């Protein structure tokens, strides 16, 4: 079965604290993983993808095939990081099929 699990609905931290948003996937093929973010009153947008191996806004995510995980991390959270974060899995198909997790709301307090 193809599935993305984000176990935390809400993650609440203080400014400057480290952040880790968890994502686990289930997929028998070769996975491609993404993190999408939705800031308040804005549309859903791509944050980063694992194949790029890049850091965006201080966030990084490493694909761990052994643990089937793609956790999103940031060493020092900022208030502007407060948003909904969705992990997504792209599966092999004739189109760009994305399977989303339920999302984690990150709240960064001053």
């Amino acid at each position, binding site marked *: 079965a193809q599935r*993305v699990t984000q176990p935390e609905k809400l993650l609440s931290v203080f400014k400057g604290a480290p952040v880790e948003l968890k994502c686990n996937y289930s997929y028998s093929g070769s996975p491609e993983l993404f993190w999408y973010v939705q800031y308040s009153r804005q*549309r859903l947008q791509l944050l980063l*993808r694992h194949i790029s191996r890049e850091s965006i806004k201080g966030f990084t995510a490493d694909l761990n095939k052994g643990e089937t995980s793609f956790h999103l991390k940031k060493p020092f959270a900022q208030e502007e990081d407060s948003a909904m974060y969705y992990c997504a899995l792209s599966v*092999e198909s*004739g189109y*760009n*099929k*994305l399977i*989303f997790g339920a*999302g984690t709301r990150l709240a960064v307090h001053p």
Partner: protein
Amino acid sequence: EADIYQTPRYLVIGTGKKITLECSQTMGHDKMYWYQQDPGMELHLIHYSYGVNSTEKGDLSSESTVSRIRTEHFPLTLESARPSHTSQYLCASSYTGRGTEAFFGQGTRLTVV
């Protein structure tokens, strides 16, 4: 400016009415998608399109229908709205190819009373 537009943003409508949710993109993308999302839940794909005159059902069964007569336009229609259709509907588009970035519209929040 290249973008993807959805109208209306919010819609409250009575049971039995026919509704059409509009989605247009000026990004030149061939692939377009409709997702449905209930509060606190995953986004579920309900329709997608490879291109003009090509539409397919997604993973989540939906009573809605879609059409793709023009590349940039991908409207979603409910012939007879019911309270169970109350949800948020997100339109997205992308280029061909696995793993390409999907661009989302602002969404339409539909409430059927």
